[in-house]
C-alpha cells in the first residue's frame, strides 16, 4: 500500500454532483475517484464545463457533497457544519480567479485577515506576512491599498493571503492568469516549496500550459469524468 492511500490529503470515491433537482437536474461530476497524498502538487485541467471548478468547490467544502465519499485532511466532508466546517476551511488556502480584496485594507492587512484566524504571537505572524509579501515582490507595497496596486500585484496579495497561515491544502483556480511570466514562476516556486518542504497538498485548476511542468500530477477532467491522471515523476 502506498503512503498516499494510507493517509491521503484528499480522497474521493465515486463522487458525483448535479446542479438542480428532478428533471431539470444537470449532472456535472460522474463517479470521480481520486486520491492526493500530502505534499503533492496536482494540476487539474480540462475544457470549460468539465466540472473542474465544481470539484474544487466540493473539496473546499464550499458546496455540500451529494453522493460518493469525500474525505480531506482527516475530515469527512459529508454533513460538515458550523464550527467544524469553519475549522476545516481555516486549514485551507483558497486562491480565486478574482483577488477579492477589501478596498479599505492595505496589502499587509488583507494578508493579516488570514492570520487573525490563527492565534499566535503577533510578531511571528507579522514577520511571516512581511516575508511572504516580500518574496512575492510586494515588500515595497505592504501599505498600499488595492486601488494603488496593479492587477498582478493584487493577485499576489490574494495568493499571500491564501498561503500565509501554512494551510494543509491549497485550492487554486487559475492563480497565475493575471501574472506575467516572472511572477508566475515566483508563485509556482512558492507553491512547489510549500508542497515539497511543508507537505502542503496543492490542487490547482488551470489552462495555463506554462505551469504544467511544475506539477507532480496532471489530472484531466472531461465532461465531468476523470479522463487521465498522470504522475509526472512516473
Amino acid at each position, binding site marked *: 500500500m502506498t503512503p498516499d492511500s494510507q493517509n491521503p490529503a484528499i480522497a474521493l470515491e465515486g463522487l458525483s454532483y448535479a446542479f438542480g433537482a428532478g428533471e431539470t437536474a444537470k449532472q456535472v461530476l460522474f463517479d470521480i475517484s481520486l486520491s492526493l497524498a500530502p505534499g503533492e502538487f496536482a494540476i487539474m485541467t480540462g475544457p470549460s464545463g468539465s466540472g473542474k471548478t465544481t470539484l474544487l468547490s466540493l473539496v473546499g467544502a464550499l458546496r455540500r457533497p451529494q453522493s460518493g465519499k469525500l474525505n480531506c485532511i482527516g475530515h469527512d466532508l459529508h454533513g460538515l457544519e458550523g464550527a467544524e466546517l469553519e475549522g476545516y476551511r481555516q486549514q485551507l488556502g483558497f486562491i480565486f480567479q478574482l483577488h*477579492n480584496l477589501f478596498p479599505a485594507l492595505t496589502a499587509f492587512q488583507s494578508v493579516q485577515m488570514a492570520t487573525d484566524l490563527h492565534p499566535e504571537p503577533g510578531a511571528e505572524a507579522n514577520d511571516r506576512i512581511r516575508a511572504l509579501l516580500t518574496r512575492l515582490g510586494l515588500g515595497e507595497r505592504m501599505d498600499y491599498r488595492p486601488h494603488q496596486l496593479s492587477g498582478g500585484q493584487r493577485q499576489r496579495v490574494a495568493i499571500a493571503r491564501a498561503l500565509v497561515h501554512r494551510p494543509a491544502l491549497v485550492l487554486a483556480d487559475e492563480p497565475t492568469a493575471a501574472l506575467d511570466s516572472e511572477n508566475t514562476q515566483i508563485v509556482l516556486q512558492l507553491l512547489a516549496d510549500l508542497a515539497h518542504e511543508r507537505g502542503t497538498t496543492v490542487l490547482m485548476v488551470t489552462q495555463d500550459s506554462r505551469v504544467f511542468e511544475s506539477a507532480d500530477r496532471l489530472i484531466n477532467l472531461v465532461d465531468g469524468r476523470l479522463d487521465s491522471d498522470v504522475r509526472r515523476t512516473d
Partner: protein
Amino acid sequence: MSPVSAYDRPTEKARPVPFALQLIFHKKSRTAVAAAGIGFAILVMFVQLGFYSAVLNTALAVSARFDAEIMLISPRFAYLGATGTIPAGRLYQAQAQPEVTTTTPIFFRYADWRDPANGANCRLFAIGFPVSADSDISPLRLKGVSAQLKKLRPTNSLLLDEMTRSKCGPVDPSGSTEVRNLSAQVVGGFKMGVGFLADGAMLMSDDTFSRFFGNHPLEEPHLGLVRLAPGSDVDEVADALRTSLPRDVRVVTQDELNALQTQHWVENTAVGNIFGMGTLAGFLVGVVVLFQILSTDIRNHLPLYATLRAMGYSKKRLTRYVLEQAWIYALLGFGPALFVSLFVFPLIQGATNLPIFITPVLVVGILCLSLAMCSASALVSARRLHRADPAELF
C-alpha cells in the same frame, strides 16, 4: 517609503486588523454623510426625549414637593389639575392615628391671570393652603417659601413662581395683578416651574383661594397632606388609614401619588404620547438611515465577505464586524448631536420656560438608545451576509 516601517515593532502583540474602523474611514465623505444622518436622528431623540423628560418633570413638579408622607385624595382624582374634592373631616379623622402628627388641606385650581400693567394674559396654577399665625411650615418643599408664609396672611396676597412664562408679564415678585378679574398683590416669589401644567404657579392662603374661586368651601379641599412622626412605617399607616377612613377618600403614599401623576402625563396626555412617539420616530429614522448605509456596503462587498466565509470566518464574526461598524457610526453621530443639543436646549428653555435640561441621565439614556438603534440596524443589515455564498467564488 520603508517597506516595513509600520510593522517593525519587536514587542508587537497579536493585534487583529481593525476591520470595522478601516471600512468606515476608508471613504471619509460617505462616512461624514452617514454620521450626519445618524447624528440628526440622535438630535431628534435628544430633543424629543428632552421634552419627554420635561413631561415627567411636569408630572412631579408639584406632587414630589409635598412635605408629607401620605396624601388623601378623591376617588375621582385624575391628576393635580383634575382632582375632585375630599371632605375636610377626613383629615381630622386621620389624626386619630397615633403616628399622624399634622394634616393640611390643599386647594388647587387653574386661574386666569392678567397683568394690568401690560394686559398680558395667561393661565396659572393656583395652590392654596392654610396660613396660620403660629406656623412657618410650608406644605411644599420650596426654598424660601416658609420665610414668606406670613406675607400671605392678608387676603389677596400671593407668591408668584419666578419661572412663570414671560408672556404673563413681568415676574418681578412685587406689584398688583388680577386673578380671575379680582385684584391681587404679589408679595413674594419662589422657584418651582410647572412645565406643561400651566404657564406658571402661585401660592396663596386658603382664604385667598376661596375668594378667588367663588367662595370655594374650605371644607372641600382638593387634597390632604398627612405628616407622620419620624420613624413611622408609611405603608403600615397608609393601610391603617385605608381601613379606618370611608371610601369617599383614597389614601396614597407620596410615591403612589407621583406614580399616578406620571401615569397621567405619560399615558393620558397628548404631550406625553407626542414626545414618546417623537423619540420613537427619531429612533426609526436612525435605524433606516444606518440600514441603508450598512446594507449597501454589505451588498457592494458581498463577494469579499464570501471570501472571508471561505477562509473560515463565521457568520457570527462577520455579524460582529457589522455591529462594530454600527457602534462606531453611533458614536460618530452622538458626539455632534450632543454638541448641538448643548446649544439647542438652552434656546428651547429660554423660549418656553419648560424644564428641559441636558442631564447625565438623558445623555447616558440617549447614548444607550443610539447604540441600540445602530445595533438594531446592524442586525437587520447583517442578514444580507447570509447571501454571501463562497460557492459562487470559484
